[in-house]
């Protein structure tokens, strides 16, 4: 699992420090569901040094570039990819594809 390898690497870089929590940014267009990721993490981290590390998932709402408003805007919904302000459709996705480890909470 990518999260586990990534956390191991980052922890090692800092002298094998214990990781209390792993912060993940997750967008609805990543194709990954929060609940599934949480249960997968439980399985993947079992019997590793990160078994007790919490996975903190921050869900990132979808945002598109609206050519009419000329700025980044949220969408009506994942089924309606248009500007929430003016209804202009857009496939220029600025946020919502995220599937990344944004940070680590390290033990003092």
């Amino acid at each position, binding site marked *: 699992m990518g999260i586990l390898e990534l956390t191991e690497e980052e922890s090692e870089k800092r002298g094998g420090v214990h990781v209390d929590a792993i912060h993940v940014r997750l967008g609805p267009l990543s*194709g990954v569901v929060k609940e599934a990721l949480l249960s997968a993490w439980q399985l993947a981290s079992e019997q590793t040094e990160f078994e007790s590390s919490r996975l903190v998932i921050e869900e990132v709402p979808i945002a598109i570039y609206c050519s009419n408003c000329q700025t980044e805007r949220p969408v009506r919904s*994942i089924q309606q990819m248009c500007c929430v302000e003016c209804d202009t459709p857009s*496939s220029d996705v600025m946020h919502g594809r995220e599937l990344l480890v944004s940070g680590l909470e390290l033990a003092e």
Partner: protein
Amino acid sequence: MSAPPITQPRIVEVRRNILKRNDELAHDLRQRFQSAGVFVVSLVSSPGSGKTAFLEKTLTLLRQRQYRPAALVGDLATDNDAARLARSLAPVKQITTGTLCHLEAAMIDKALEDWNLDEIDFLFIENVGNLVCPASYDLGENLRLVLLSVTEGEDKPLKYPTIFNSSDIAIVTKVDLAEAVEFDWSVANANIQAVRPGMQVLRVSSKTGEGMEEWLAALPSRR
């Protein structure tokens, strides 16, 4: 490794993509394809939407036009699809994923080991029939097709918006059956445009050949 026991920030910023390894490998593949002059198309859809029939027809037509197409096809088990595609006489290789529900860049890399890319103009990658997981994995393709058969219903795009959003062209298949199943084209197209504004949509029948010319015209001409 020993880090000095000085005060470390309690929260450190990392910002690393979880599928980074796949993304990097896909990036390498894309560069290899480009330098060998191979145009790569991947196909995603639910099981039974007609990917293999569409691909067989595509391979056959491209060969008739003196192109050199090839195909990789992913399934959990059996090489039935590869056997069907091989009837087109194009080079075909089956990738069996075992229990995995999607293809990853590493599998493509491995499957290509004994193929000479210089002898291929178009490489088609048929993903495992699944509208969920394949959305997350870049395979180094130039074009991703999502197939939707008229028998599946017009609301598929709304049920699986992510795969439609991550694809470049939607192919509506089995249009020869549209009337029998009362498929409403305008509703289906509106749903596709809602989840992926501006998406190119093509209507084809692999059986009758309808729409295949428009599809081939969407591919770049080479050589």
